[in-house]
């Protein structure tokens, strides 16, 4: 079964091989494990990029295959980040607090330790009590479970309400965007319990592993991100390969027709929406420890819009297209906005990329949508000669004696 699956989808194998090569290559030139040609911060950038590719694969499943233009998947990504961030911050702070209290003449009671951790974490928002949402922050197992479960549950509830009332198209997009906005505004508040606009920080330090240098940790995370991307890609490819994929693409192209075949369109949408939210959560949980910090601005609707732009530029409806889009656009965005790109002096005006990049990106999005709807991934059709002649049947039977168009329309 597995063999025939890979056989039917050679692109999966190629992708996995390239991903493995890439990971080995980066490891070989990293500071932590290799010859040290690549800076640790760039290893982190690449690791983060793999996470973005994973959330783009999720976005492609939900948008490119199922036709739901969700502007909420970066919120699920952020939630995953917050869930792991809580444990990282709690445990690390506990380590620090315990070391400092150990010097005290009287050994601290467990409650004193907890109070001191609370003081450390919530001091910035003028509080020291642990909010309810931090109840499980000391348990890695539970927080890891929440990385998947919380985005999944939110998507399930939201999707159930939205799909059941048959909200589709642009209205659904607006609704998902509203959800994202509400979530980010809520998190901005100090009393949300997640440190308001300060967010969670210091996430790059792994509790109990203070002795391990970041150059090593960064490669670990690169591996973990590559593994997650590989598995997520495989899962997505498997999901869309068989009859399920047929039904889902059918929903994208003509959901009413799918209903008349007896498929409950709403359940399918719900499955896809929830599954992809969970994948997004995992991607976020791997991303933010590499970024080191998460705050509510990361969840703002614009992030989810970027996600859609990546997938559109890469080519939706094909998984490698999503990966290409995310990797290409996010890396080049970093380059342009990071100030590395040289300014262009036109004599009368100097183009500063930091200011102009967004405009270039927006323009390319419009151009791709208009002139190359298949995106960058469409180039592979040319190379692989998979491009079929753009044949489609005559609108009405070509032969003499058939009814004419006007007779067949309602």
């Amino acid at each position, binding site marked *: 079964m597995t063999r025939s699956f890979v056989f039917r989808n050679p692109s999966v194998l190629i992708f996995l091989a390239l991903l493995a090569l890439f990971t080995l290559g980066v490891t070989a030139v990293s500071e932590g494990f290799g010859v040290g040609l690549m800076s640790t911060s760039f290893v982190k950038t690449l690791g983060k990029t793999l996470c973005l590719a994973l959330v783009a694969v999720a976005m492609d499943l939900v948008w490119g295959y199922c036709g739901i233009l969700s502007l909420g998947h970066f919120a699920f990504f952020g939630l995953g980040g917050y869930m792991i961030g809580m444990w990282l911050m709690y445990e690390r702070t506990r380590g620090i607090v315990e070391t400092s209290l150990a010097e005290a003449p009287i050994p601290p009671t467990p409650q004193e330790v907890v109070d001191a951790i609370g003081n450390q974490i919530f001091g910035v928002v003028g509080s020291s009590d642990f909010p309810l949402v931090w109840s499980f922050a000391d348990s890695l197992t539970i927080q890891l479970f929440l990385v998947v479960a919380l985005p999944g549950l939110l998507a399930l509830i939201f999707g159930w309400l939205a799909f059941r009332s048959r909200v589709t198209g642009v209205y659904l997009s607006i609704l998902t965007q509203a959800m994202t906005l509400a979530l980010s505004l809520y998190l901005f508040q100090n009393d949300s319990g997640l440190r308001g606009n300060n967010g969670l920080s210091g996430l790059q330090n792994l509790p109990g592993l203070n002795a391990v240098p970041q150059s090593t940790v960064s490669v670990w995370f690169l591996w973990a991100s590559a593994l997650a991307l590989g598995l997520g890609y495989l899962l997505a490819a498997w999901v869309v390969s068989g009859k399920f994929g047929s039904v889902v693409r059918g929903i994208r192209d003509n959901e009413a027709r799918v209903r*008349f075949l007896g498929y*409950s369109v709403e*359940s399918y949408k719900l499955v896809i929406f929830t599954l992809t939210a969970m994948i997004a959560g995992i991607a976020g949980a791997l991303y933010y420890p590499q970024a080191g910090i998460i705050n509510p601005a990361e969840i703002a609707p614009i992030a989810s819009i970027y996600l859609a732009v990546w997938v559109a530029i890469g080519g939706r409806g094909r998984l490698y297209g999503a990966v290409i889009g995310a990797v290409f656009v996010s890396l080049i965005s970093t380059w342009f906005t990071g100030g590395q790109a040289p300014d262009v002096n036109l004599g009368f005006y100097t183009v500063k990329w930091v200011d102009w990049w967004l405009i270039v990106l927006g323009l390319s999005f419009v151009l791709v949508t208009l002139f190359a709807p298949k995106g960058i991934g469409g180039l592979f059709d040319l190379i692989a000669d998979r491009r079929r002649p753009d044949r489609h049947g005559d609108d009405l039977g070509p032969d*003499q*004696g*058939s009814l004419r168009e006007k007779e*067949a329309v309602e």
Partner: protein
Amino acid sequence: MKGQLLEVSGVSVSFDGFRAINNLSFTIGPAEMRAIIGPNGAGKTTFMDIVTGKTRPDAGRVLWGEKSINLIGMNEARIAREGIGRKFQRPTVFEDQSIQDNLLMAVKNKRGPFPVLIYRPAAQDQARVEELAAQIGLADQLSRKSGELSHGQKQWLEIGMLLAQEPRLLLVDEPAAGMTLAEREHTTDILVEAARTRAVVVVEHDMDFVRRLNCKVTVLHEGAVLAEGSLDHVTANQQVIDVYLGR
């Protein structure tokens, strides 16, 4: 009513005050062919919309099967799973997918997301797909994208998908549109064959086609039944001539 597969009684529906279906009653038996004719806008398609759950009527009942369950209020997917299949007036196939995929999606099997997710084509399903493809003259084109088919072939593919569902009632809206004479004759054969074991309702404007179906005919006009009987009987009816045939 005993022994009927579908019983529509006293159904009415208005769109913005316009009565598209007006106190319509209609029954069909378990293995019966029925043709519905009538002028444009008579409500033929709307009738199918009501039976398949797409349009909810303002009044009336639609009873189905031995247990006479009421179909009104059920969603489209549920009604389809009850055994009512529908072919649309304009052929609607999944153009982006192969003929194989189109047919396989329609073949009767579990429809829930999880069974479908782990579904792998069984040998008998593949055999069924090939058998249907042969029946609709597309046997050697299974891997072709259905968007490339001609209009008549799309009509057939849709009929094939309909048969694949193994419904107990087939609602077929203008199956012969866009077909050559030979294709139309073949379509008649497929439908007549299907009607041996199940109920088939065919909406068609082409009188020669209806004649070849050789079945009871119902004439709709302004959302109600105007006449019913053999084709010769209804075509002799003066009212029918006035509103439909005499155009």
